[in-house]
């Protein structure tokens, strides 16, 4: 358990009382199916503690990588999710994800590393200081959020695994278990969900393995207990509930790329110039805002990451 390794619990610095009250009001006002579903998800016995309902994470450091933009309310971050393992509409994950058991959790490491093996989540987190990273999150569907993640740089974990020289890519896999993830009973995508990064992308200091948000342990619908966050890429690259990492010489193919290769490429960098057949990528709607805003190259992280793609035609490598 993460919690046991932390010292005494104190309220998260960024827990916003107003948002908390808003959520209570929302639950009170909701009716019919909505109330039953929402309440069972939000007031799930396992996570019915302080703050927003999850267990607080102690000793989180702040980070200079964080944006100062207004946070997307907790309620919206955790009730509007693309997590097809729990259904293909955005409300389903919050309502269905109670069947996922995020503890105990093991990540299998394979491929071109000196230290492959099964890593318990506790081992991955042992001695690691967690940071809060407030990142913009841009979905390929044309909406965006600002989310205060809690996690640690993926690169720190990878260094410990001692990748070999021919490890040019990392592939990630989500849990495959149709009992815990009922959406996997229908093959809307190829299961398990697969995503990948080039090694330099994986080692980039912005790339995060998240274990929490809003100062609390990740709720199931947000990819508990361990998920990837790559803020300059479209959200679907941020694979959730990771159980496997493979270090490869060949570029892995993600589930969405397999499903529609001309729509979802390997890189999936946020790029207002590279049009998508379904959504204009020039603008986006920040959740909670009315008018759309301009989408920024690399989701506003160009200064930090543009050098990774020097000399590449990003309209071809979309």
């Amino acid at each position, binding site marked *: 358990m993460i919690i046991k390794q932390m010292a005494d619990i104190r309220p998260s610095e960024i827990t916003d009382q107003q948002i908390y009250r808003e959520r209570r009001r*929302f639950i009170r*006002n*909701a009716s019919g199916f*909505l109330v039953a579903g929402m309440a069972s998800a939000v007031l799930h016995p396992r996570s019915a503690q302080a703050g927003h309902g999850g267990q607080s994470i102690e000793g989180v450091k702040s980070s200079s990588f964080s944006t100062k933009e207004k946070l997307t309310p907790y*309620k*919206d971050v955790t*009730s*509007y999710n693309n997590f*097809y393992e729990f259904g*293909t509409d*955005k*409300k389903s994950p919050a309502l269905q994800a109670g069947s996922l058991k995020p503890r105990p959790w093991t990540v299998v490491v394979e491929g071109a590393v000196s230290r492959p093996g099964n890593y318990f989540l506790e081992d991955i987190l042992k001695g690691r200081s967690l940071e809060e990273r407030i990142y913009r999150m841009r979905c390929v*569907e044309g*909406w965006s959020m600002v989310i205060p993640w809690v996690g640690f740089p993926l690169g720190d974990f990878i260094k410990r695994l001692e990748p070999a020289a021919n490890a040019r890519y990392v592939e990630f896999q989500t849990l495959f278990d149709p009992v815990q993830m009922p959406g996997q009973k*229908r093959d*809307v*995508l190829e299961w398990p969900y697969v995503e990948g990064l080039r090694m330099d992308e994986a080692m980039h200091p912005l790339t995060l393995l998240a274990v929490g948000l809003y100062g609390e342990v990740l709720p199931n619908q947000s990819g508990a207990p361990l998920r990837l966050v790559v803020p300059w890429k479209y959200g679907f690259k941020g694979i959730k509930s990771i159980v496997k990492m493979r270090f490869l010489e060949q570029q892995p193919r993600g589930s969405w790329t397999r*499903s*529609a290769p001309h729509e979802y490429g390997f890189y999936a960098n946020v790029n207002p110039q590279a*049009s998508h*057949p*379904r*959504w*204009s990528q*020039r*603008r986006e*709607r920040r*959740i*909670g805002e*009315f*008018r*759309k805003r301009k989408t920024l190259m690399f989701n506003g992280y160009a200064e930090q990451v543009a050098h990774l793609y020097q000399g590449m035609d990003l309209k071809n490598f979309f």
Partner: protein
Amino acid sequence: MRGVEGFFKPAVFFVCLLPAIMLAWHGWRDLLGANPIETITHDTGIWGLRMLLLTLAVTPVRKITGWNGVMRLRRMLGLFAFFYAALHLMTYFWLDQFFFWEEIWFDIQERPFISIGLATFLLLVPLALSSPTAAMRWLGGRRWQRLHRIVYVAAIGGVVHYWWLVKADARSPQIYAVLLAVLLVVRLLYGRWFTGLLSQLFSPSRFRV
């Protein structure tokens, strides 16, 4: 009898208005979810399609059940289809794009599901305009009927619009496609052309030596 019938149409009218009332209510109570504009877009769109299919179900229902009273609902259902489609389009122009015509023009050109959606709406416009009895008289029954065959194209356009917009899970649009196919096949089976063909094929004169 007349009392029941007189009550029937207003009741159906109210039921057809319910989705719009619910949407307004949810909007007022802030229950439209994290992305309210998306919810409004999807809701008005799906109800437009449902009303269109209900309109197309009127004639088959009359032919199968022999209940002629249902015909009195057809125009109203058709106008509700137009009503929701118009709300859907207004949501896109206004709330979604905020009358940013340059972006809308890009969308129409680049995104097939938007092009076909807009074309489908444009097909519904002459049908709505020619719905008053006066317009029907002015056109003449035959021409009016020919004009209103456009509704089949519009229904197919609506289903395709829905199908093309989903990312991966096409189950819901598939259901609408099947419903539409059933309605069209039933129409064919009960149509004059088909029954004519049947009666020709099996007419006793064919089997005379």
